[in-house]
């Protein structure tokens, strides 16, 4: 059973993502609504993949990403960042900061599922 952490401040987005991933075998999703909560969850439990929204209030996704990359403990977990159309700067920055892949909104459920499965299988 692989565990995925979905980090997004929008409840609507989280619901969409979790439902899109439901079809995948042997996968379980957990949710965090802000960066600090995400870090806390990563401290207390094991995750195989993180889906990270960039545009969050209080702690921006990029800061979460940098925090994860700065510490050996979290460095190995693959992270897919969710960006929006036209936000090239953040996308580039994210990749430079250690994101494994990015998905641009709007994305369809199969796109998301495909990306997740690919990354989970690689490890």
């Amino acid at each position, binding site marked *: 059973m692989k565990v995925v952490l979905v980090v997004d401040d929008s409840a609507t987005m989280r619901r969409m993502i979790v439902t899109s991933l439901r079809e995948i075998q042997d996968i379980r999703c957990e949710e965090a609504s*802000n960066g*600090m909560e995400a870090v*806390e969850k990563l401290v*207390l439990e094991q995750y195989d993949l993180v889906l990270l929204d960039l545009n969050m209030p209080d702690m921006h996704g*990029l800061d979460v990403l940098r*925090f994860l990359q700065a510490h050996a403990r979290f460095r190995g977990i693959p992270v897919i960042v969710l960006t929006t159309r*036209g936000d*090239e700067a953040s996308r580039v920055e994210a990749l430079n900061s250690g994101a494994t892949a990015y998905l641009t*909104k*709007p994305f369809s459920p199969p796109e998301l599922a495909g990306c997740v499965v690919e990354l989970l299988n690689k490890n």
Partner: protein
Amino acid sequence: MADSEKKFFADLMDDYFAECDEHFSAVRRGLLLLETSYSKQVAEDLFRSFHTLKGLSGMVGYSEAEQLAHGIESYLRALTKGLVVLSQPGLETLMASAKVLEQTIAAHRVKTPIPDRQQILKSLDCLVSGQIVEEIRSQPAPTSTGSIEDPPPEKLEQIIAARKKGAEIWRLVFKPEAALAERGINVNTVRERLGQVGEIIHAMPKVVENDKVVFEFILAGPKQGQIFESWESDGISFEPFTPSKPMETGVVADTLSLRLTPSNIVRVELSRLDDLMQKIGELVIGKARLNELLNSAEAEIPHGVWRNLQETNAEMEKTLRTLREGVMRVRMVPVYDLFERMHFAVRELSRIQKKNVIFESFGGETEIDKYLVEKIMDPMLHMVRNAVSHGIESPEKRAGTGKPLEGRITMRASAVAESIVLEISDDGRGIDAEKIRSRAATLGQIKPGESLESMDILEIICGSGFTTLTRADVASGRGVGMAVVGKAVEELSGSLSLETEPGRGSSFFIKLPLSLALERALLVEVCGRIFAVPASIVEEIVEIKSDSVTLFENNEIVAYHKSVLPLVRLSELFRVDCDRTADFYGLVVRSGKNRVGIVVDRLLGQKEIVVHGLSDPLLQTPGISGVTELGDRTPILILDLKELTRMRKRT
């Protein structure tokens, strides 16, 4: 689509619309703040809101909304980067585009045509054009500065500002652990807790001792740290804050910090709260039955046992009351949001009509049932628009009559016993009774020569079919009239009243009962059938002997308090056969300025009842506002006395 998919989609869309609502609330607040003075922080928050709206709308496939949000966001981005400066037309365009975006999303929700966006997109484009925003250039994200573990410079300024206001700065460190999480102590709840004792200036994760992760908070809080002492056992340590770098006493930034949105809000569907209220209502009825049964059982069981039963019963009654109040409180929201919508509408309309109007509100913290907010929103918007359009005069006219050039619209909310009173006042031209009267006379609603008082004016302008505007105005939608308002207020079992003085202004008062689900009712028998009558409308009950009734111009009347009381018989209004009893009762009810007596044969008592609506069109009848039952599932019709008196006038 399979049913489960349909349901998922419907739930998802509910989430989407609810989330959009929240964002628009924040947008409105932000735009109003921007109007008083520009602040980068506010502009950034606005940018984030529209950015999120863009992403969400794209995800659910609303490309028009996505496109528009993208346009707005681009302008805001340019603002925050200092590439453009906020100008008056810029602000106006922002507000207008926010409105169009809200309408676009709303159009999807109620499946009406989507408003045209071309104009607004062009305006937004103009604002940003000429600034080449090089997005491809790799730029650091807004919140990062060097090491992510030191507070950024703006925060230092915030610290200085807070110290100036007399707060003490603390550094608190929370170490998450599984055991703590099980007790409900996690970074979210810790944050909440801190937010309650002060203002969180900065929050960040940190790694200490090589591999342990903690969360550090910089808090502007109480002078003494005793309150934090008991928190040690919850994994929270504290110490006074000492900055690692020397702090420059630079210019204090203008921190218009909007409060951090607490993540402890649970979004609940209103229908679930309705169900809860319903169940509580049934409990109340069941309890009433229990009371009766207990009373009748007194003779049959040993007294000691009976007394214990009564005590337990009384305790349950208290608990039930607390429960009911608690659920009612859950449904309550401050009217502030309502006022802000009005504020927005006033600003917009006064700009379009080139009038100078000040909006002020009082009592925004007064709480009102969420259901009422939804229902009263449109009528209030209507009245506020009327106030600006027809109430407040043009600046020239006002100058001519010696009034201040700015018109003033005031809204007030106050709780009075079990009701809330909402007031909308303007200092405009007042309502011209003469104009109303002549129009009403033309429409045949009153006799020529009949004089009018404020209450009558209200009745007439709320009567359907009445408008003082010309046909062109009606066509443009403005003449829909106060009838809509009157109806909405009635449907909520409320009352509408008016005070007006020509030349000085008008005040409308909407009084709404706070509790909708439960109502005190009089049970009466008419023509062999039992009906329920809301007690709050009945001013008095009088006993009438049939030989004291006289006939006057085809109306039955009786002497009443130095005047007369016209009688209304349900048998005539409902066209049912009925034996007239020798003696009967009259329920005295207001009708405009006068009073009317509704004839009932017997009085059966007073009870608190659960009101059920009659929503199906097959059951709708003028004069019947709902249905209830007394514990045995037999439906009892609830009379709408106000409407009945109005029906009588027409016959």
